[in-house]
């Protein structure tokens, strides 16, 4: 009898230990979008397209058992101004803040329609810009652009109010080390923060290129890459931690592209730095992968993690250390808008 008890207790212990290390199951992966122009595009063609993509996302949730919770990044290009109106490059076709508001409205309306009788599933839309080629702008311009961006997010929330029981909108920025000086990106983030009120969070869906893979302490490690060297950019873990978490509106939604697992290690180390330096429990919301975009443009060897690879890499890294363990909210994979 005693022997049987020992066997049972051992078995329960093994099962418990196994469960403690089981990777959190990945929820369905949403498709995020680079909102690029197609030839002979018009605003109305874009709105119609956005509605159809929102509708498709709603249909997925309707036809998936249970209540879903998804995030969709609409990457709209780098900061711009045209005729005194703030906006984004649209990757070749200027999008004003008003057009972007209507883009988000179209997606939200499509989702509302497509999710049909499913009135519980949630769609979180992130309206995102990026920090590429912003060195030529003054810090004041970038600060003001960030402030205009958060205002656009707030205006959009009012516009999509009829769908508020299922759709929320946030800001976003794809901040990458090879794109600009850190101070420029920080100016933009501070501008966003200046007009921020909860819950209009800012999701950094950028990278941690060249940051340390291990050995993090409370002294920030340098993030050095070919591009940062060539352009004289000096990024550190502290900059990335600030723009992704310590800035009031920020949450990280990092790019976990590298098939070698390096990106996951870099972000775990940034979370660890946040803990060691600032005693923060930095919360990473979701891994972003780019496998669909890679398929579209002929592949990107070494940076084409599938969503499940990105999920497992990041989860395993974060949960390898008691100071950074956590689960995620979402999973998303980005794709280009194409004809």
């Amino acid at each position, binding site marked *: 009898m005693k022997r049987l008890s020992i066997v049972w207790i051992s078995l329960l212990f093994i099962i418990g230990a196994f469960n403690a290390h089981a990777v959190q199951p990945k929820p369905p992966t949403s498709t995020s979008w680079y909102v690029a122009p197609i*030839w*002979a595009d018009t605003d109305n063609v874009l709105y119609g397209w956005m*509605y159809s993509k929102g509708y498709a996302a709603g249909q997925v949730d309707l036809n998936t058992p249970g209540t879903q919770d998804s995030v969709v990044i609409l990457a709209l290009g780098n900061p711009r101004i045209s005729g005194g109106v703030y906006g984004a490059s649209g990757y070749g076709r200027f999008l004003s803040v008003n057009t972007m508001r209507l883009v988000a409205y179209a997606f939200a309306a499509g989702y509302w*329609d497509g999710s049909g009788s499913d*009135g519980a599933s949630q769609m979180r839309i992130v309206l995102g810009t990026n920090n590429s080629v912003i060195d030529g702008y003054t810090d004041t311009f970038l600060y003001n652009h960030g402030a205009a961006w958060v205002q656009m997010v707030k205006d959009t929330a009012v516009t999509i109010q009829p769908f508020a029981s299922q759709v929320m909108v946030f800001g976003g920025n794809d901040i990458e080390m090879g794109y600009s000086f850190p101070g420029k990106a920080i100016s933009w983030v501070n501008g966003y923060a200046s007009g921020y009120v909860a819950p209009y969070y800012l999701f950094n869906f950028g990278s941690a290129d060249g940051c340390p893979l291990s050995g993090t302490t409370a002294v920030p490690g340098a993030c050095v890459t*070919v591009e940062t060297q060539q352009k004289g950019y000096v990024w550190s873990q502290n900059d990335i931690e600030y723009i992704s978490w310590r800035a009031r509106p920020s949450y990280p939604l990092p790019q976990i592209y*590298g098939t070698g697992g390096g990106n996951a290690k870099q972000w775990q180390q940034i979370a660890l730095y946040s803990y060691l330096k600032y005693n923060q429990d930095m919360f990473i919301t979701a891994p972003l992968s780019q496998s669909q975009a890679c398929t579209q443009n002929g592949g990107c060897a*070494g940076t084409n993690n599938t969503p499940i690879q990105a999920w497992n890499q990041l989860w395993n890294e974060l949960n390898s250390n008691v100071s950074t363990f956590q689960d995620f909210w979402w999973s998303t994979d980005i794709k280009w*808008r194409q004809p």
Partner: protein
Amino acid sequence: MTKKVKIITLTLGSLAILGMGGAYAENLYQQQAEYKECLAREEIFLIKPRQSVSQETPGSPEALKWAKALQEGEARAKEQCRPKTSAEIKKMLASKKAVREAHLLEVEEWKKQGLLEPQRANPRDLGIDEHADNYRKGVYQTNAWRGYSDEQRLDSLMFVIAGSASGNIPQGQVIILDKGYGGPASEYPTPTATGPVRITAEKDGVLTLESLAGTYDVYESGPAGEIPFSEQKHEKVTAIGGVTYYFDLKTRTFR
């Protein structure tokens, strides 16, 4: 009514009541489970306010802001997760139907007004772009040009990125993206490796490019954000720059 009938009626009635009661209890249980699940989902937006409230100095403006955010977030979550009445569900379904109908009407109106017809790009989006989004990691980009290779054809709109070849900065090149950033890319190296090139002009379908002098790092292993910089072998290479190239957009060749 016989005693037998009374007993059967009473039994059936009791069973019906029990059944309804059971169904009601099950429904209540289901609603509570959904409510808890929903609150857990909404908790995601309360993580930051909760953590911040506990970390800020009590009574400071920041602490008050976060406390307000937390309070509002909790109220929103409760409202969001509250079981909806049948009237509310009916209203939601009617709203969804109305949104669809409005969209279909709107699209018809757009068609009537010709707003879905192919249009020529806005002049503000054409020409040389000094702020074009970075094309890809590893591509040394200077500037870009967007325009028509054939003014008569709207589908000849192309995007040209100027700069250098990946991992070999002294080798200038242009990249043509016929379907924008997301489509396949065609790369055209300059005839001589005199440095990265930038677009200075475009006339009659011919781009003028100037190469830039400088000393550049060339990496053997190619750029990769995952590989620690210290582990990447590289050497410094000097480019003479100052050479003018002409690229014909129709034939896609350097003259």
